[in-house]
């Protein structure tokens, strides 16, 4: 009996004009999103390669390591093709210094601000907004529509249990719609290598997990709409209720949770922190001024040694000052990071009330474009900073952290200086999270998606058990 209802539901969906229209729209959107994502990725990759090459050229054009302005760049993430996450919002370049705080700048939206307004159309958008709405459109009248049309009564004039009926309907709608949606997804996946996106086996697994999470997300909206349909008396009522729930789940809760967490946990803004650091830096510099002014050399010192002594004196002052600044910065950054982490935890915790947030968190985590992307980039950059600092100290005697620099040319007939070899500069490598890490990190959200499915299915089931069939 279950199979019969399951197949009936499949046939009914496939033969409906509602399906034809939405399938056509979804297919176009899904394939388009793969295509546009691939184009964006290739553009980002070209920009990244150009930035790296420019950095090498800049090194190669210099004869002194002290004159090098080294920049490291975040390579684009292949799966940002599918799920953009924060990849377009965070700075991609960091001007490297031997010491001090690093800051990423030059986001994707710097280049193309128009996308900051309308954003990109990725799979997260298609699942999160479009397919969840389609799930409501498909299932809002699944039960009460049959009651109004009279087919429910005719079905239950036979020896059919309610559990079999609702189970068959849910499974039939889910499989019918999911299999149909898988077709454009598979076409999109097949397009990736053709469009020049080479994914590793690890990334294919992640992509498969993203699509499966998306289908679980779609399924929970289907069950939710069916549950509403079993609780509301008329299809028009269930459609309205479904729409309101969708608006709350998709549009309001994720945004509201960020606002609420902002109220609950106050975090000073970055400008305040920077101003505090700058004030402290200026204060220390002013305190050092008399020491700088009091520099003196013993009588009889050779003029060539004077410069060297002055450099050492200034370097010593600078190092002491920097130690204090570093300690202050570390403390203030830690306080800031702790507050920000707390705020993020509250925001993410609250937002997980909404299945849309849960799906967003799971998919961005799997794609490697979650909030962790920024932290990971900064961690990699900070690690690299030590390597860079050691390299610069070895090459110049200074750590490359900036500060006072004096070069004295003593004669014009010196040997022509050699240009620098960019290959000598240690390479910056961004370490991507492994499949194991992202799976572990997304486990809670994938688990929540399954839980939402069970919850909404259970709700629909119970509502239908109590449903008045007349």
């Amino acid at each position, binding site marked *: 009996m279950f199979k019969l209802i399951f197949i*009936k539901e499949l*046939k009914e969906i496939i033969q409906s004009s509602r399906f034809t229209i939405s399938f056509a729209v979804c297919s176009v959107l899904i394939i388009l999103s793969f295509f546009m994502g691939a184009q964006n990725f290739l553009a980002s990759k070209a920009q990244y390669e150009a930035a790296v090459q420019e950095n090498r050229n800049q090194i190669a054009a210099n004869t002194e390591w002290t004159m090098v302005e080294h920049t490291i760049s975040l390579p684009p993430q292949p799966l940002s093709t599918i799920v953009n996450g924060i990849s377009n919002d965070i700075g991609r370049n960091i001007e490297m210094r031997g010491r001090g705080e690093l800051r990423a700048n030059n986001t994707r939206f710097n280049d193309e601000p128009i996308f900051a307004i309308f954003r990109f159309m990725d799979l997260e958008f298609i699942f999160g907004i479009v397919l969840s709405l389609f799930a409501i459109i498909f299932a809002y009248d699944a039960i009460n529509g049959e009651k109004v049309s*009279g*087919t429910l009564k*005719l079905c239950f*004039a036979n020896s*059919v249990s309610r559990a079999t009926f609702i189970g068959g309907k849910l499974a039939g709608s889910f499989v019918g719609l999911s299999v149909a949606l898988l077709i454009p997804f598979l076409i999109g996946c097949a397009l990736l290598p053709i469009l020049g996106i080479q994914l590793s086996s690890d990334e294919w697994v992640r992509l498969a997990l993203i699509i499966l999470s998306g289908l679980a997300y779609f399924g929970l909206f289907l069950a939710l709409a069916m549950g509403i349909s079993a609780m509301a008396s008329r299809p028009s009522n269930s459609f309205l209720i479904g729409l309101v729930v969708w608006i709350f789940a998709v549009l309001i809760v994720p945004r509201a949770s960020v606002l609420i967490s902002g109220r609950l946990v106050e975090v000073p803004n970055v400008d305040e922190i920077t101003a505090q650091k700058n004030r402290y830096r200026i204060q220390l510099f002013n305190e050092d001024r008399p020491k700088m002014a009091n520099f003196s050399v013993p009588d009889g010192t050779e003029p060539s040694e004077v410069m060297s002594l002055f450099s050492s004196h200034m370097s010593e002052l600078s190092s002491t000052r920097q130690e204090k600044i570093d300690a202050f910065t570390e403390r203030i950054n830690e306080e800031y990071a702790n507050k920000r982490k707390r705020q993020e935890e509250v925001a993410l915790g609250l937002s997980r009330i909404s299945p849309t947030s849960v799906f967003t968190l799971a998919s961005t985590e799997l794609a490697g474009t979650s909030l962790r992307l920024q932290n990971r980039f900064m961690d990699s950059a900070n690690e690299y900073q030590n390597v860079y600092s050691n390299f610069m100290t070895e090459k110049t005697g200074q750590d490359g952290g900036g500060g006072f620099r004096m070069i004295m040319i003593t004669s014009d007939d010196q040997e022509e200086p050699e240009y620098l070899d960019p290959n000598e500069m240690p390479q910056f490598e961004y370490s991507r999270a492994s499949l194991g890490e992202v799976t572990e990190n997304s486990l809670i959200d994938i688990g929540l998606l399954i839980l939402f499915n069970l919850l909404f299915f259970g709700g629909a089931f119970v509502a239908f058990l109590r449903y008045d069939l007349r």
Partner: protein
Amino acid sequence: MQNETIKQAPLLEARNLTKVYEDGVKALDNLQLTVHPGEIFAMLGGNGAGKTTTINIFLDFIQPTSGNAFINGIDANSDPLEAKKNVAFVSENVQLYPNFTAMQNVDFFVRLGGKSQYKRSDYEDALVRVGLQREAFDKKLKDFSKGMRQKCGIAIAILKDAPAILLDEPTSGLDPKAGKEFTRLVGDLRDEGKAILMSTHDIFRAKEISDHVGILNAGVLVARKTNAELKGVNLEELYVEYMAGYMEEVGEPSALINNLS
């Protein structure tokens, strides 16, 4: 035939059936009726008399407050899945799946009724028997008239081949020709030994085809006549007389008569 069948156990039986809704309205009051194989029992009565409530209890769509409904000796409310194997149902306004063809609808509902042995030719025979044009077999139901849908509903009931059939105002809204065809079909089913319980407003068709006519008023079976007892009787007058008589008894005759007229 009647003499033979009456001796058999009833296929449909309402025993002291009472239904009081949550708002206190008494829809059925101690209803007793039996329908034996090869019998048609027509329930007559105005709106809210309890006809559909009776059918809904037989189909387990609602639970009786007290009493029992039996289908082929099985309590329809305590073992509904087993009971419903023995009954087919045709509603007032048969609505099938509009995106399915007549053939697909018949196939689905017949299988749902537990019959999976049929071939397409069996479905075609049933649809021809109920008078549906062959060219309509593979057309979607959304293009069908009410009469055509009703014919599909009857075909489904025939193919289910259950011993008992429940008809809820089956001729309502049908044109006279379709109504006559329907009556013929129901007569054939009775002759095949089916027990048919039919709720209707159609006094003349009820008299023409039924073996028993029961008049329901406010949930009470106020009269029960056999076909023989109705010979030469003006059923319309009898109907009004019983309804009015009962209401006089309970004290509200004028409102009821106005309602009936």
